[in-house]
């Protein structure tokens, strides 16, 4: 157990498709009266098991709707799996894409503290990292401007800078490096490479085999909620390319 940062054990996740759409009491009562509250079960994940060693960078690939995001949510502890269990050792830092979790009326600076607290870090801890975050995000004087005035690139740079500065044990990156200009992307990739020296485990979701190959050493492929391949990044990327060309 100690050698694994993430242990996903026979995880299945079921959603009730119809119930998701009902969000007013009237709709609920009308449908209940008509006995239309039939739920179609949808399995977003079916018996997925894999382990990620400490310090590994695991690429998660799959077509749209394959269950990648659901898997990340289960690992992050946001969703409780219907069956199975997930064990994560240490602090998880999810990189919040495009302002999710940021408060748009708050300044960049205030959001740094809010974000850190959301991950359970005290203010004093993040104050030490503050200069580093501002520098890496290249926000400069804009750090005191409210977040609503930021561009999407600025927001994702800030998000990436915070998530990587707190030195988490597990870092979740959901298709984030596609935002931002080429220079920042390169800088981010370098930073992730540096982090692996510190034993940080990375989960990286992407459609781009090139990027997965550059960043990750391991990879998995999900298809319709099932784990179809698990192995070295190079082999898996080849396999994924074949799957893409067959489609």
């Amino acid at each position, binding site marked *: 157990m100690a050698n694994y940062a993430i242990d996903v054990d026979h995880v299945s996740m079921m959603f009730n498709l119809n119930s998701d759409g009902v*969000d007013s009491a009237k709709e609920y009562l009308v449908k209940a009266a008509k006995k239309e509250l039939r739920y179609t079960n949808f399995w977003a994940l079916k018996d997925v098991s894999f382990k990620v060693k400490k310090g590994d960078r695991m690429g998660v690939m799959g077509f749209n709707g394959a269950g990648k995001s659901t898997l990340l949510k289960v690992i992050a502890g946001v969703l409780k799996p219907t069956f199975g269990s997930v064990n994560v050792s240490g602090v998880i830092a999810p990189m919040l894409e495009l302002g999710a979790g940021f408060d748009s*009326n708050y300044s960049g600076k205030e959001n740094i503290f809010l974000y850190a*607290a959301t991950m359970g870090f005290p203010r004093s801890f993040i104050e030490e990292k503050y200069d580093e975050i501002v520098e890496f995000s290249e926000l400069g004087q804009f750090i005191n401007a409210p977040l609503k005035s930021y561009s999407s690139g600025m927001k994702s740079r800030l998000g990436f800078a915070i998530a990587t500065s707190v030195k988490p044990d597990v870092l979740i990156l959901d298709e984030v490096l596609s935002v931002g200009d080429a220079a920042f992307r390169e800088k981010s990739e370098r930073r992730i490479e540096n982090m692996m020296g510190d034993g940080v485990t990375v989960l990286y979701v992407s459609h781009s085999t090139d990027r997965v190959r550059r960043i990750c050493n391991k990879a998995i492929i999900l298809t319709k909620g099932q784990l179809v391949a698990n192995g070295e990044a190079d082999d898996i990327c080849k396999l994924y390319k074949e799957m893409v060309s067959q489609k």
Partner: protein
Amino acid sequence: MKNKNTLGNHTSNFMKYRYLLKELVNKNIKLQYRDSVLGVFWTFLQPLLNMIVLSLVFNNLFGKDNSKVVNYPVYLLCGRLMFEFFTKSTKKAMKSIRSHAGIIKKVYVPKYIYPVSSVLSTFVTSMVSLLVLVFVVAFFNIAKINPIDITWRVIFVLVPILIVFVLSLGVSMILATADVFFKDVENIYDVFTTLLFYLTPIVYHPDRLGFAEGSFMSYVIKLNPLGGIVGMFRACVIWGNDFIQYWDFGQMYYCIGFSVVTLIIGFVLFYKNQDKFILHI
């Protein structure tokens, strides 16, 4: 894992996220008055102006009997401060899960932190609003218009304040849970608070309503816990040394019981449903 239901786990989990609670309370307070010219002064101004308006409207209708209502503006302000804390905090907490949907979908956070921080931040601003009451009482005493004899016994206002805090927290947890599943709750609650305003003796004195003892409406008025809370608060402020004569112990026990039961129901309901929140927000 973090979701095991033992008391020790809950406590250590809370300790880990106490910084978040603090940051959220700070945020709510800071953002409330950001972009307004007068900023935090609205905490004082709003209740003061409201008191003046209500005094002008209702003074002639209800305020003439001085044996029951020593000083109508003060009487009004006492009731309104308690009532406003209750409605503001519950309304804010009701929407708190939905308004933090973005983060709840991405990061594991103990979800109760959002309604609790809403109630706490409203509590802080409401306590600051209490200063208005101090100024208004000082004004009447200096101007010698219906002066109010404030004694050390005013400290007993802490009893109704504590009760209204527990009640608001309990109601908040129930509303926050319900709002996740049915957004209609927001509209219904809006109307309900208007009704509650008139069912609570804020602008009128309960004895002057003229409902017969044992009639339906007299029970409705009596069963409203906010009525008891407002009554206790006023007794401490207005009646000074004689406050005990105006302090209804039966009402006090009823209010405490009602609030504690509401709090328990609120937290149980919240805990039973919180894993389903993410499917609906």
